């Protein structure tokens, strides 16, 4: 199968982005970004909201194509894969969407069983066992008969996580896993991501703007701002970085190299213009 990582050695990164650029209309999202996702580690991509972090995950998953540069996943250029190969590659990637993205017409059990039913011919008894095992990991085995509308935001994300690991993927992509979570749910998710990465020997990519939570579990971090990788390194190094943009982001300062004000006309000019017209 073309999406097998057979061409990679154990030390090669599982995903590499080489000089990737991407734009939406006139707005440049990425401008020559280089990122390496090492195998078996948790890599965090940090950046301000609207900075294209979700776009990055979609580039890795082949849902978007870069304007230039190369996205390599499991040793294959994603752009060179045909539809069948792309879908085969995606089966080895689990993705946790920000909203959970559970199928609303299916209950919790069926949501987790969905990838198994779509991609395998396993007998019903085995599907049941696998689903219950995955739900046990996220602590929601007894919520299996609930529908997505009956779940809290944190529970929905845990169900989505169980679904993401249903096919035992090589890598899991987390899109803002901590956004909008209460402290308890956040703590549960942080521990789950760490535990799963170790227990299942996964490779995890977390895009987030929650610095503290992400830094507590990540092995390596990238800070992306204004389309470029500002800095990368282990969390401790990032926290003590003297680069102004990194310091601003890691300490949550409201103004700095990443401006508080949306760029445009100067405040005074704007006010005076209003009066004179």
């Amino acid at each position: 199968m073309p999406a097998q990582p057979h061409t990679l050695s154990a030390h090669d990164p599982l995903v590499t982005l080489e000089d990737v650029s991407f734009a939406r209309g006139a707005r440049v999202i990425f401008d020559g970004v280089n990122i390496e996702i090492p195998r078996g580690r948790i890599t965090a991509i940090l950046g301000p909201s609207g900075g294209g972090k979700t776009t990055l995950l979609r580039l890795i998953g082949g849902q978007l194509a870069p304007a230039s540069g190369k996205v390599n996943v499991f040793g294959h250029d994603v752009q060179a894969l045909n539809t069948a190969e792309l879908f085969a590659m995606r089966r080895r990637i689990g993705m946790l969407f920000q909203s959970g993205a559970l199928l609303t017409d299916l209950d919790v059990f069926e949501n987790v069983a969905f990838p198994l039913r779509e991609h395998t011919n396993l007998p019903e008894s085995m599907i049941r066992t696998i689903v219950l095992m995955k739900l046990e990991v996220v602590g929601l085995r007894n919520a299996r008969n609930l529908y997505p509308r009956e779940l809290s935001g944190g529970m929905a994300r845990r169900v989505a996580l169980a679904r993401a690991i249903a096919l035992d993927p090589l890598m899991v992509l987390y899109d803002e896993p901590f956004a909008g979570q209460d402290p308890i749910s956040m703590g549960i998710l942080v521990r789950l991501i760490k535990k799963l990465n170790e227990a299942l020997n996964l490779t995890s990519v977390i895009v987030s703007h929650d610095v503290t939570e992400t830094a507590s579990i990540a092995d390596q971090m990238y800070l992306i701002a204004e389309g470029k990788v500002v800095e990368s390194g282990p969390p401790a190094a990032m926290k003590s970085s003297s680069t102004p943009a990194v310091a601003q982001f890691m300490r949550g300062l409201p103004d700095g190299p990443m401006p508080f004000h949306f760029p445009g006309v100067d405040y005074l000019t704007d006010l005076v213009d209003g009066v004179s017209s």
Partner: protein
Amino acid sequence: MIEFFAWVGRRSLAFFERLGRGTLFLVQVCARLGFLLTRPSLTLAQVWAVGVQSLVIIGVSGAFVGMVLGLQGYNTLVTFGTEESLGVVVAKSLCRELGPVLTALLFAGRAGSALTAEIGLMKATEQIPALEMMGVDPLRRLIVPRYVAGLISMPLLAMIFTAIGVLGGYFCGVGLLGVDEGAFWSQMQLHMALGTDIGNGVVVKSIVFGAVVTWIALFEGFDAIPTSEGVSQATTRTVVNSSLAVLSLDFVLTGLMFD
């Protein structure tokens, strides 16, 4: 003046660009029809949602339309002393025009809008991107079963609408207004042709309308801007565009079938 032409040009380009994308969408859907042979249960579930759940509105509307036809037809025919032909008037107008056209309009409002909203919301809540990331083709898994369900349901609904309409006309004409029962049915039997009136009228027209309405509804949902406003606009466009498509296609089909 130049601005007006530029505006017309822009609108036309936008229209044809959208039509092109819609056609491409339809081609992609048709290329995946074979998938249903392996998963017929997916279509059955959609026939329930699209067809069976539209039965009440179709049945009630059919009855009232038939009753109105009975009343109006009787009032006109009795002037010429030909009220025995009421059965023919009711059956011909229902089979050739009102049955398929009104069913398609109701179908667009009831099932079409629901399809657009469902698919559009699935897109807005990231369910469709999630399917793609799970390696599941959303066109195959979501769109194809719904498209085929629309194709199956629409002719069946049109037949039910027409049959109930005829009974409504019978109830008004024979039951309330005193038209001779034997004349009502025998005249209908004599002047209705299976191929022309029922085959062309009910069956062919409703299959074409079903194909077009379901196509528009699914394309609008799949193409919707993934926000609440985008989905609401897409739903409106489904009802407006399918109604216009049904009415204009009906004119073309009538011209071709019954000239």
